[in-house]
């Protein structure tokens, strides 16, 4: 049976490889993507408009600000949905309780985690804050931050991690992230521009219009980071313990 299933996989893989020959070459000037006026516009204008060296961040957080905002909202809704489904469920728990084992936390693993968790958190902040100059940003930093809490939950047990970052606080932080994002948008609207038109923030910040965009993007990324951190951890905590928040994986 295994060998039979291998045949279509190899066939499809070969087909895809064959089709990949038609792709334009890497960095080809004549390819459709490079020819279109949109990309040349972004490549030419990003630095002038926003003073952000990393074009991807500028496009994500500024030109496409609405999209990123609702992506964050989708992440938040996913977390809420999992919580809503699993919070009251007891069907899994009653059976599961009989099988809970007394596994004492491993000495070596916990000590290593003690040493590396602060480093991971600093690294997460670094990724978050340097999204403008190097690859990174709110989503990546948030995932790293959430991973540090998940690592605590894995090496001790879920109770220890939840006592450091409880689910209620998780929800508050997640909501706070969206409030930060939407707040920056609303603030720029109140100052006379459009929703998420960061350039208007120059009136409250002591910088030029372009740098106002730069700093507002950082604020927006921080909001995304908050939401992603909290939802990552809440999803792990709920899914691994089937809503009971005990013992974990």
């Amino acid at each position, binding site marked *: 049976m295994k060998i039979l299933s291998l045949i279509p996989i190899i066939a499809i893989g070969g087909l895809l490889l064959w089709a990949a020959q038609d792709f334009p070459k890497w960095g080809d000037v004549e390819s459709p993507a490079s020819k279109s006026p949109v990309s040349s516009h972004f490549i030419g204008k990003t630095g002038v408009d926003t003073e952000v060296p990393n074009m991807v961040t500028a496009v994500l957080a500024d030109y496409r600000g609405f999209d990123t905002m609702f992506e964050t909202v989708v992440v938040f809704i996913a977390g809420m949905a999992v919580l809503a489904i699993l919070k009251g469920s007891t069907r899994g728990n009653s059976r599961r309780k009989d099988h809970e084992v007394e596994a004492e936390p*491993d000495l070596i693993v916990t000590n*290593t985690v003690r*040493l*590396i968790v602060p*480093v991971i958190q600093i690294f997460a902040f670094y990724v978050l804050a340097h999204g403008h100059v190097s690859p990174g940003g709110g989503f990546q930093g948030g995932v790293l931050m959430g991973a540090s809490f998940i690592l605590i939950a894995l090496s001790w047990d879920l109770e220890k991690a939840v006592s450091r970052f409880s689910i209620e606080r998780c929800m508050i932080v997640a909501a706070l992230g969206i409030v930060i994002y939407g707040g920056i948008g609303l603030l720029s609207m109140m100052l006379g521009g459009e929703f998420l038109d960061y350039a208007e923030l120059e009136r409250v910040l002591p910088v030029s219009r372009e740098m106002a965009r730069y700093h507002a993007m950082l604020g927006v990324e921080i909001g995304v980071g908050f939401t992603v951190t909290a939802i990552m951890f809440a999803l792990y905590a709920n899914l691994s313990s089937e809503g009971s928040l005990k013992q974990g994986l």
Partner: protein
Amino acid sequence: MTDHSMICLLAAAVENGEVGFLPLKIIGFASGVVGLIFFLGTAVGMVRFPDFYTRMHAAGKGDTLSTMLMLGGFGLVTMEDFSVGSWLLLIKILAVILFIYLTTPTSSHALMRAAFEDDEMPMTEDDLKKSKRKGKRKK
């Protein structure tokens, strides 16, 4: 000669436009190749060793040193000039090395403990002899 004075000499050589930083590159190349050789040991050990625990020896140990040597070699090779940026890059690579130094033993211990609690008993000397004899008989 201490390391520090040697680095100063090298920096001076670079400024004079000599072949100055070639020695660093050669050290980098050499450590990369040595790392590759140790990785060969790991790869062969992974295939030839008889059971999971002995393979763990090959993987856990060979991995640490070969990764360290290769990363360190690349850190030295990419050392173009002696500006602050390149020093920071070297320190960053050293940080990755330190990270691997810390985590590889831990992850190998965690896997080993998981296997041991799975009632998968490690092979003893007698088992090894038996399996060897069996192999010979087959031949």
